[in-house]
């Protein structure tokens, strides 16, 4: 079974630029999550989708972050404009029940 796919794996941008991350969940998984993991911290939930609807986006900084899952499968997370404090690993996870399966993450560096 293929795992959660994410791209790109690494991204370096300058502050105030925009960036987008892509996630392809495990086939058949209705629930998709985006987490932000800052160095030295545990992952923090940004947004949760059930199919193509948002379940929880209470911790998403909506002034600069946006996410979508238009067809209930792939998802994109966008940051515009990026700030220095957005440097982190962005993790995508998917689940069909109670176990979340994580992708390799995208490491973002904002200079």
């Amino acid at each position, binding site marked *: 079974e293929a*795992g*959660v796919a994410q791209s790109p794996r690494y991204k370096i941008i300058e502050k105030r630029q925009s960036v987008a991350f892509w996630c392809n969940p495990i086939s058949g998984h209705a*629930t998709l*999550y985006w*987490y932000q993991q800052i160095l*030295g*911290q*545990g*992952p*923090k*939930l940004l947004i*949760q989708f*059930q199919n193509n609807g948002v379940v*929880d986006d209470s911790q998403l900084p909506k002034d600069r972050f946006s996410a979508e899952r238009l067809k209930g499968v792939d998802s994109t997370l966008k940051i515009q404009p990026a700030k220095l404090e957005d440097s982190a690993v962005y*993790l995508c*996870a998917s*689940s069909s*029940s*109670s*176990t*979340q*399966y*994580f*992708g*390799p*993450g995208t490491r973002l560096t904002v200079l």
Partner: protein
Amino acid sequence: AQSVSQHNHHVILSEAASLELGCNYSYGGTVNLFWYVQYPGQHLQLLLKYFSGDPLVKGIKGFEAEFIKSKFSFNLRKPSVQWSDTAEYFCAFNSGGGADGLTFGKGTHLIIQP
């Protein structure tokens, strides 16, 4: 606010030593508890989980954890560690039916010396 506290950020042990990693959560309702592990260069993967029933749960690779409700704790244990257990360990929880987003602790970096 809900949170998870992992008491040790860095632990160094010799092979065959016993391991116990502490985890306490802060939440007023019913919780589901998880331990995730991240081996060097690999994805986060589930080690074990507790939803209900027997508070002592067993996971992969000989790990187990005990849920003590009165102490809001879910400590991870292994009687004899191996060099291959070197990894980052994260305690997490969610509420509801188990599909909610997870609240993670900061993690414990475990190094096993051969």
